[in-house]
């Protein structure tokens, strides 16, 4: 497999952040960056579907909720180690994403986006009605008192170590995307993006490969949700509302879909920027205005996303 400059830069970036971030910033920012790593992974899933297949998922944050739910459910229900719970979250969410894909397979463009938005709306209602398991009895596992303890990975009990852990998992997730992109699925996706008819005429099983993209993106969302659950120890339905999914998609476009810097930028805009606003004591309503304006500005002026602009500014890095 050929090594690209951007790939090496990505690994270097991941290594540097994993090594230095936890020692350089305070514990508040360790948590912020952990969230950022989780959302970067989820945004990478959005970017994968959008850049490779022109398919829009407006339910990615909702799917993170599903992953988080599974992680918490497993954590409180069974005594298994974190890695196992995380993997289960990924797999279940991937299956869930695939299920979503079934009605969506015949759709494109706005319709597809809207059906995913509808599922985001549905997930929001279910999560806010039944809440996340916190160690209670029964299937939903909700009890009124303070949540039972969450078992983080043995290697990453401390917040700093957990940040490193999240960065590593996110990097692995992005490598998984890259692996797909360079192989047969990547070629099949490119063909489907050109036209489904042409893809079929090329012998590509369009249904399978589209469902596969949904599943892969779901897997990443599930992992991201599981990681997020581990960061806080519990989750709240408010994090996974449908508008958040739209927002993460918008930021994935602004960041630059289809490249790792794009996903990282999206997550930074999504989590670090508001945290900064909050830190500066900016009125949250005004922060919303600035955020909305920045979103519009970026969508208008950076068609390739901010990552694309950076790439253009650094010609040496191209490809």
């Amino acid at each position, binding site marked *: 497999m050929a090594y690209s400059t951007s790939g090496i830069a990505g690994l270097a970036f991941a290594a540097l952040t994993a090594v230095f971030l936890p020692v350089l910033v305070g514990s508040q920012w360790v948590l912020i960056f952990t969230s950022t790593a989780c959302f970067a992974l989820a945004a990478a899933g959005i970017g994968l579907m959008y850049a490779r297949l022109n398919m829009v998922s407006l339910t990615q944050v909702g799917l993170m909720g599903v992953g988080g739910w599974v992680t918490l459910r497993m954590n409180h229900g069974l005594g298994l180690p974190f890695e196992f719970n995380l993997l289960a979250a990924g797999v279940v969410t991937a299956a869930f994403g695939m299920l979503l894909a079934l009605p969506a397979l015949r759709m494109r463009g706005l319709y597809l986006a809207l059906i995913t938005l509808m599922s985001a709306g549905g997930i929001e209602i279910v999560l806010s009605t039944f809440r996340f398991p916190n160690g209670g009895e029964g299937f939903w596992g909700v009890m009124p008192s303070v949540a039972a303890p969450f078992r983080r990975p043995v290697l990453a009990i401390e917040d700093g170590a957990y940040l490193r852990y999240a960065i590593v998992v996110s990097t692995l997730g992005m490598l998984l995307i890259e692996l797909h992109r360079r192989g047969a699925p990547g070629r*099949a996706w490119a*063909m489907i993006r050109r036209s489904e008819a042409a893809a079929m005429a090329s012998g590509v099983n369009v249904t399978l490969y589209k469902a596969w993209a949904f599943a892969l993106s779901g897997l990443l969302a599930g992992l991201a949700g599981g990681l997020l659950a581990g960061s806080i120890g519990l989750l709240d339905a408010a994090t996974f509302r449908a508008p958040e999914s739209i927002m993460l998609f918008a930021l994935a476009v602004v960041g630059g879909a289809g490249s790792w810097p794009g996903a990282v930028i999206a997550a930074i805009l999504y989590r670090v920027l508001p945290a900064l606003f909050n830190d500066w004591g900016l009125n949250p309503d005004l922060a919303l205005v600035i955020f909305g304006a920045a979103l519009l500005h970026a969508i208008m002026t950076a068609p390739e996303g901010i990552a694309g602009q950076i790439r253009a500014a650094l010609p040496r890095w191209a490809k």
Partner: protein
Amino acid sequence: MIELEKLTVKFGGVTALDHVSARFEKPVSGIIGPNGAGKTTTMNVISGFLRATGRVCVDGVDLGGLSPHRRTRWGLRRCFQQEQIADDLSVADNLQVLLDALPGTRTEKRADLDSALDVTGLSARADTPASELNTYERRLTDLARCLVGRPRLVVLDEPAGGLGPSETAHLGDLILSIAVLTGAQTLVIDHDVDLISRICEQTLVLDFGRRIACGETAAVLEDPKVRAAYLGIAEEGA
């Protein structure tokens, strides 16, 4: 041998194909007809993109139940009226997509791909992103895709559309070589009568979804019905 048996396709009230039957035995055959006669529709039926009543048999195999991508795996190749190559893949990867879906070892596929690029003269452009190709190179890439993976039947929809005379001539030679190189039978739709009469031994003529003639190309083109409906030289015959 390609056998079309009583193909009928309806879109709402419009009958795009009306009990069309034909049998193509020559290595390269053509389908011509006025605009909207149902040529593309016929091709869509053969390649499985449209459901029709009737039967499509190739070399004795009934393709009826197969979905388009299975037909491709079986050995059917098609080019669309507007070329459909993926801009974000290189020329070689545009061919590789097809091979990905087929059985075979890596080295076999590589050899297959190289020879297809060689025949079409695209070897030098193998690693060029398709977005940088010009119209003709895009056509050639599309055609090269029909050469890989042991095709049995190749169907081309207006392959010479938008090409200049010399390009058309070159393309005609390439089409003729398909049968020689791969043993596949080829069906060509085009409005360029010169091209059709040069490369197709046999031709089917459609009009308003009905077969109006079928047979030796030269003979068909002399048929007064064809001349009237297609070439617009009715006055001489009448």
